[in-house]
């Protein structure tokens, strides 16, 4: 098995910032621009050498269509370098990297700037179709009578916006909100409120403990882009207590639910940029990578149980690469919901689940606690949907280097019923 590897030279991300807080003023194009700019500065790469720029973004901005191209040009990457934007929901940041991998394998380029960006603060409010039709009629109206008529057709309900963020977090096929899918997993796999809250507390504690480590991968954001210099994520709570978590009301199933804002990922703004290239190119340029990508898999599953996506994807990646969970010195499973990660861990080690859903005899494997999300996860750091996949790659590779380990596995559940898994290794 000696497939060519895509090496990751370096990565940079903006601080992750809770929706509506420090970075709320910056759109996804600005966040991405800052990350790419910082990446180019940090690596010293001549941007004219880049073959393509690929960025993941879920809530793509209406005023910066093909946001990857906007980011590339604004970060000073020359016009001749093409760029495109990818969307695989929560795995969009992974998709950008795996696209680069595929392109490299196909001989369509050797140096890529990839990443993900998301401003969940700036996901717009929308008008209903009904209201939009009325606006269109008004715009077309010529005579005063027509205009008056068009105006009079409006009803107060027409002005009630549809919240883009809410729509985005609702599965249009099964009709469930992402939180509802987590409630299903909690019920079916017996993940109690206590277990979820304890998991959330641990995420915060680990993120707080890892503050300095995480700062290594962050490019500070300065005024005038922010009010004050921002050098780190603002999600992790030092004073987080189990009492406080326990007090929170369930958000999705208010009466019988267990999923709260405290044990779910935070809604966050942020961007990540990675410089990736073929191993040969890296050697030619004399650049030392922080790691390499060796294989990956996406897998589909039941949209109502999208949270189990990692289980499917990790199993599929094993089939493709032969690597099992035992091979991983660092594992990241994105913390969309505490319930969802805990359910994944349970299914991964269940023979029954393996036989029923994965068409295999034995369970996939176990993930030791001291390997999983060791620097905290999205519950503490936040989950800027389009960016997270790329962050997991960056964070896990940095940790792999710190631990001087061999391999890392990152995985995410994806809204709409998918999972993503990527195998990385240190040189």
């Amino acid at each position: 098995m000696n497939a060519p590897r895509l090496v990751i030279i370096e990565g940079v991300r903006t601080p992750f910032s809770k929706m509506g807080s420090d970075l709320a003023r910056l759109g996804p194009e600005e966040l991405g621009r800052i990350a790419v700019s910082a990446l180019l500065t940090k690596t010293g790469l001549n941007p004219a050498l880049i073959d393509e720029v690929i960025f993941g973004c879920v809530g793509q901005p209406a005023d910066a269509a093909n946001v990857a191209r906007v980011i590339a040009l604004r970060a000073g990457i020359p016009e001749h370098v093409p760029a495109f934007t990818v969307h695989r929901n929560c795995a969009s940041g992974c998709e950008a990297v795996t696209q680069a991998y595929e392109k490299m394998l196909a001989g369509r380029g050797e140096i890529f700037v990839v990443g993900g960006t998301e401003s969940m603060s700036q996901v717009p409010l929308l008008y209903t179709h009904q209201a939009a039709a009325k606006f269109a009629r008004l715009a077309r109206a010529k005579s005063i009578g027509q205009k008056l008529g068009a105006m009079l057709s409006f009803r107060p309900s027409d002005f009630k916006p549809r919240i883009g963020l809410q729509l985005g977090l609702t599965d249009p096929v099964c009709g469930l909100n992402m939180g509802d899918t987590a409630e299903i997993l909690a019920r079916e796999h017996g993940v109690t409120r206590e277990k979820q809250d304890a998991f959330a507390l641990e995420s915060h504690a680990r993120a707080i403990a890892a503050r300095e480590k995480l700062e290594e991968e962050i490019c500070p954001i300065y005024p005038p882009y922010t009010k004050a210099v921002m050098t780190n994520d603002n999600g992790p709570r030092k004073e987080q207590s189990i009492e406080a978590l326990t007090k929170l009301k369930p958000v999705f199933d208010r009466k019988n639910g267990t999923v709260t804002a405290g044990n779910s990922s935070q809604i966050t703004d942020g961007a990540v940029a990675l410089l990736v290239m073929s191993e040969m190119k890296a050697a030619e340029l004399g650049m030392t990578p922080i790691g390499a990508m060796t294989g990956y898999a996406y897998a589909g599953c039941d949209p109502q149980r999208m949270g189990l996506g990692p289980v499917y994807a990790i199993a599929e990646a094993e089939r493709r690469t032969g690597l099992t969970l035992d091979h991983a010195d660092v594992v990241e499973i994105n913390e969309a919901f505490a319930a969802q990660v805990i359910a994944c861990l349970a299914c991964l080690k269940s023979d029954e689940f393996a036989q029923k859903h994965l068409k295999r005899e034995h369970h996939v494997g176990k993930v030791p606690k001291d390997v999983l999300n060791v620097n905290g996860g999205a519950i503490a750091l936040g989950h800027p949907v389009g960016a997270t996949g790329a962050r997991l790659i960056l964070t896990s590779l940095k940790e792999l280097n710190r631990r001087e380990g061999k391999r890392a596995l990152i995985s995410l559940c994806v809204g709409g019923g998918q999972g993503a898994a990527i195998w990385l290794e240190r040189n």
Partner: protein
Amino acid sequence: MTTSQTPALKIVPRTDPVMEATNMIHDMPELIRRHVTDDQVCVLTFDRPDSAANIFDKAALMELSDHINYVMCNSDLKGVVLTSAKKSIFIAGADLTQLSKARTPEELRDMIELGQVVFNRLSTIGIPTVAAIHGACVGGGYEVCLACDYRLASPDKATKIGLPETQLGIVPAWGGSTRLPRLIGLSKALDIILGGKTLAAKPALKCGMIDEIVPREYLVEKACQLILWRGTKLRVRPTRLAHTIMKLGPVMNFITKKVQRQLQQKTRGHYPAIPKALEVVTQGLTKSLEASLLLERDAILELGTTEACKNLIRIFFLQERAKKLSGFAADTTTETKVSPVKRITVVGAGIMGGGIAQWASSRDIPVILRDINHDAIAKGLAGIAKIYEQAVKRHALTKVEARAGMDRVSPSAVDVPLHSADVIIEAAVEKMDLKKQLFARLDELAGPNTILASNTSALSISEIATATKHPERVIGIHFFNPVHRMQLVEVVVGRQTSPEVVRRAVKFVQQIGKLPVVVRDAPGFLVNRILMPYLIEAGHLFENGARVEDIDESMLEFGMPMGPLRLIDEVGVDVSNHVAADLASKFSDRMHCPEVLSKMIADQLLGKKSGKGFYLHSKKGKEPVVNMRIDKYHSGTSCAKLTRDELRTRMVLLMINESARCLEGGIVDEAADVDFGMIMGTGFAPFLGGPLRFADNVGLSLVVAEMKRLADEEPRFTPCNLLQTLAGTGQTFYKS
């Protein structure tokens, strides 16, 4: 030939026996090409061979006159279009070399009258005339457009339209002062002419200086169409009520009085061209066109012979020289092609570092802004953003351009690879140890071809260079504060700096639209070296009893843009003291830093930044007023009785002396470098031509005599050897 169809507008050059004959007669290269279209429109394309610019010299005027003859002899022609084949210049005005070299008033008068006559003939040619403007269209270039019936201009950045004559100490005299107020009304015309303004296409359209904006590619086509479709209607301009009202006696009086008052405040009578232009424009408007043109002519004849005008034109030439400079004038090594700078790094995000980063980024150059701490970067970036915001407010940049500029500045608080930077400019704290450490490190991080530059205003470049393995690539690139407003940059050549690095640094300075002066490495370089004795003297005079008002007012009367004590406040009392003390320690024979500055610093009187210094500075753009309590810092009375003239004499003499010393010590090669540096770097009264030109005009023997008289009591006034020698042998700094 009338068809209802859209006329075909192919422009076909026609061989033309008359034209060929004309050329043979003049026996010189053609400056204006003539085509006649199939539809009988005569297109005159200004295209001076072997030049990027078109100008009006005698030959060009004569040639235009010949073309007018041709048009008048061809009754088939439907109209005339004036255009230019140059990339960024329509017509850059009159040939200033010819103007300034006119030896006799008659020569100047002939030139002026020739222009007036030719433009008059164009304006009465009998068929519609359209100017199709792309690129700089200034002075005589716009005056010829004013003689046309209709004006089109491209929206490109290169297109600049206006009458900058008063900035050169003259008035528009080829009909500009006469035709512009008739076209756009008195008050707008005064604004343009007295301000010597040039406008972009959009504002020019708004105030009526042009009639339409048309993309460059369609300019000539559109001009031809207009002639064919609208014909003689183009010649008729509706009378504008507002213009008529402004011509009424009382209204005109009111406008004139108001403008006069503003002028006096601004120019203190140092710029006679401006009040003269006011007189010509207002009086001309009440007279016939011919009479008004006579006024123009008389005015320029009067002004053209003044020293102020000559000096202003000289500065114009010195600026042009700086744009083309490639190193020391004496450096004749073969010139290698210098490729433009693609990216730079600025080390130090303070006011200067931030200013340099802002300016370079606004000139399309990506900048890494490096500092050691986050707060310094934050302050630097915020400062850069503010300059951009102001530029947007002033309409100097669009929002998109300003954002693109901001995008080009990439901050870093940690070491990053700098091998791709063509130039690294260090603008850190002025401490030799620190700079040496920094340069040693930069030497490692930089690529083999990177220029290592320091923005130091005081420290020795040669010494800084010793910290590196490649002293030949170390140079000073010294910007002035505020960077976005000061055009001058001192390129400081250290002992080991290679000529190639000098050339590249000069090219870089030009690339970002600044004006370089190349100086050798010595304390204070050129500008600060000459400025400091002046500021020190001001402090000394104050310390010994002279009043703040008298000191500053005396120099304002001299023509400085700001009094010396006010300047100390603006720069910061602490910074001034630091620089002055540093220089004084190196020239202790003649400079002693006055103690008053240290006393003020101890009392937190730091000037503008602390709100108090020699003046009280209020926050909101109000003029500062003299600090009433500053008197307690007087420690003597020996200068209390000096008149303003005496105060001024002392300060100016010291500047002249130090200027001469710079020349003597080979800091620069020519007197013109000193004068250029002082005018551009300190705002030294431009109409006086700079300290050395001024000394020449006053008479060097007089200067030396006055200095010797003062030196009897105060040895710092001892004239330097060069001054004494020149005065003794009856020579001057400039060879006439």
